[in-house]
């Protein structure tokens, strides 16, 4: 197989813009051209506005000439279509939310705007951020740039497809059960689910407020670090956000791997893993060992039970959020979202509350198991190759539930634990589809995760691999 071309990273773009070697207009036009080419193949965008993006780029270049600065000044980005905009509409991938006009900007959008980022469009997503595949009955399924017959992963499906194809330099996603990590995993990207409370959710469409996190999908760990630096930090509008200071992560990701300890799970806590995926996982551990990390084995808890605890919370909170519409407008929901929310009306209140009450102690127990002697845990992300759209195109509620559980079994438990997780790309399979694993660390250890991701990416030299535009 020939080696794919390489796409410019966001960090490299900012160096070009800051040095004057490139203008925002040039960068924006090139991404719009990529979008025009790719959109018919992968359906990554719900909408994009070339005129508006071009005007924003002109303003950005003028601002730079006036001496204004910003960590993302002039960078053309696009995000999952689920963030509130003052005077604008965000679909949430649904037929219902598109009717509602926003009256404020989401905090993450406000922070990106203040850093000078440009927005070229709104990205496709699973309806109401509730689906791990990228299927969408209202706006069409997103398709994987590495092979459009395959799913992108979801729910931040357009974010995965748009970043991997090069339509945008990076994108925001949200993660309630794996929705940042899964599209990153399946599209060959870095996807960072920050610690619960690291990034404000104010103005981000909720799926389950006790689990939701907002974070970046990017083509390098350094790009993810740059976006995180801009969006993280306490927000009075989201009282769950931590008051910890926000470091300039992109300057801190050179933490040496030598001297770190990486844990791996004893046995196969998520069940059997497909051979090529398991080999990639093992080769990642070997790569970290070759960089000087010590590898240790640890016992994991029963992830099926942590999954159930996460389900108790996500389904119940989703039912509370969607109940009115499910009663009054059931036909405006796809069977995927409707059926996956129904159990939330039936789970008893004491089960929901028991799951919540146990969370702190379960987290303590997990940290003792995994991180007493280790800085991070390297663990599988999905246990199968990236499925096709046809393989996951289930129509019956029972089959949908099984399919979702199969895809999210290694991601959802970490939302219950609130821990940060990084999807780490491990190259391509023999069929040309992305392989990956997850790195998990202690709360607020994003620096550790990004440093490990950065070191791994530098060593492999495969960040930014570009898929070929299908004919």
């Amino acid at each position: 197989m020939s080696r794919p071309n390489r796409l410019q990273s966001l960090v490299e773009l900012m160096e070009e813009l800051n040095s004057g070697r490139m203008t925002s207009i040039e960068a924006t036009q090139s991404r719009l051209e990529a979008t025009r080419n790719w959109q018919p193949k992968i359906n990554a965008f719900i909408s994009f506005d070339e005129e508006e993006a071009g005007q924003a780029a002109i303003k950005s270049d003028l601002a730079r000439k006036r001496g204004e600065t910003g960590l993302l000044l002039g960078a053309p980005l696009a995000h999952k279509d689920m963030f509130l905009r003052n005077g604008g509409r965000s679909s949430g991938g649904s037929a219902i939310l598109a009717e509602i006009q926003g009256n404020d900007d989401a905090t993450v959008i406000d922070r990106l705007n203040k850093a000078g980022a440009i927005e070229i469009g709104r990205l496709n997503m699973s309806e109401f951020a509730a689906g791990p595949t990228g299927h969408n009955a209202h706006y069409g399924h997103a398709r994987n740039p590495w092979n459009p017959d395959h799913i992108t992963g979801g729910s931040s499906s357009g974010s995965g497809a748009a970043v991997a194809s090069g339509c945008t330099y990076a994108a925001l996603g949200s993660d309630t059960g794996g929705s940042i990590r899964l599209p990153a995993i399946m599209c060959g990207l870095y996807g960072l689910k920050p610690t619960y409370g690291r990034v404000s959710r104010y103005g981000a469409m909720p799926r389950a407020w006790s689990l939701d996190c907002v974070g970046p999908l990017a083509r390098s760990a350094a790009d993810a670090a740059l976006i995180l630096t801009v969006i993280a930090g306490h927000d009075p509008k989201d009282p769950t956000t931590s008051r910890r200071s926000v470091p300039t992560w992109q300057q801190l990701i050179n933490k040496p791997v030598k001297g770190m300890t990486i844990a791996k799970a004893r046995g196969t806590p998520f069940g059997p893993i497909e051979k090529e995926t398991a080999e990639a996982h093992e080769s990642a551990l070997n790569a970290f060992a070759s960089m000087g990390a010590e590898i240790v084995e640890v016992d994991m808890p029963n992830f099926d039970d942590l999954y159930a605890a996460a389900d108790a919370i996500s389904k119940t909170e989703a039912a509370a959020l969607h109940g009115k519409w499910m009663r009054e407008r059931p036909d405006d929901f796809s069977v995927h979202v409707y059926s996956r929310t129904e159990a939330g009306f039936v789970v008893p209140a004491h089960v929901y509350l028991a799951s919540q009450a146990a969370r702190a102690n379960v987290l303590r127990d997990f940290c003792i198991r995994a991180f007493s002697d280790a800085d991070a845990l390297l663990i599988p992300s999905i246990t199968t190759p990236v499925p096709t759209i046809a393989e996951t195109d289930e129509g019956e509620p029972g089959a949908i539930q099984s399919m979702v559980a199969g895809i999210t079994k290694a991601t959802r438990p970490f939302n219950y634990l609130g821990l940060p997780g990084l999807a780490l790309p491990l190259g391509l399979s023999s069929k040309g589809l992305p392989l990956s694993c997850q790195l998990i660390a202690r709360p607020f250890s994003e620096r550790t995760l990004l440093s490990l991701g950065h070191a791994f990416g530098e060593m492999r030299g495969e960040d930014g691999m570009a898929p070929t535009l299908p004919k």
Partner: protein
Amino acid sequence: MSEDGSWAEEVMKNAGLRTSSGRAKEIATETNRIHSGVKRVAATHFGFYDEPIQFLAALEELGEDDQ
């Protein structure tokens, strides 16, 4: 909870949602799976709970100084 689904059907109907006996049975099975998993995870002791405050405090307590 029984897996015949009749109780789930009643709850769904009381919530104003359309359902069928067959679907209610599936929902009952799913709910029982969740309940069983939570029981294994959450041996809730009698005491003071005030979520999400205690969970947020645990995240802070267990977090490293990542600067």
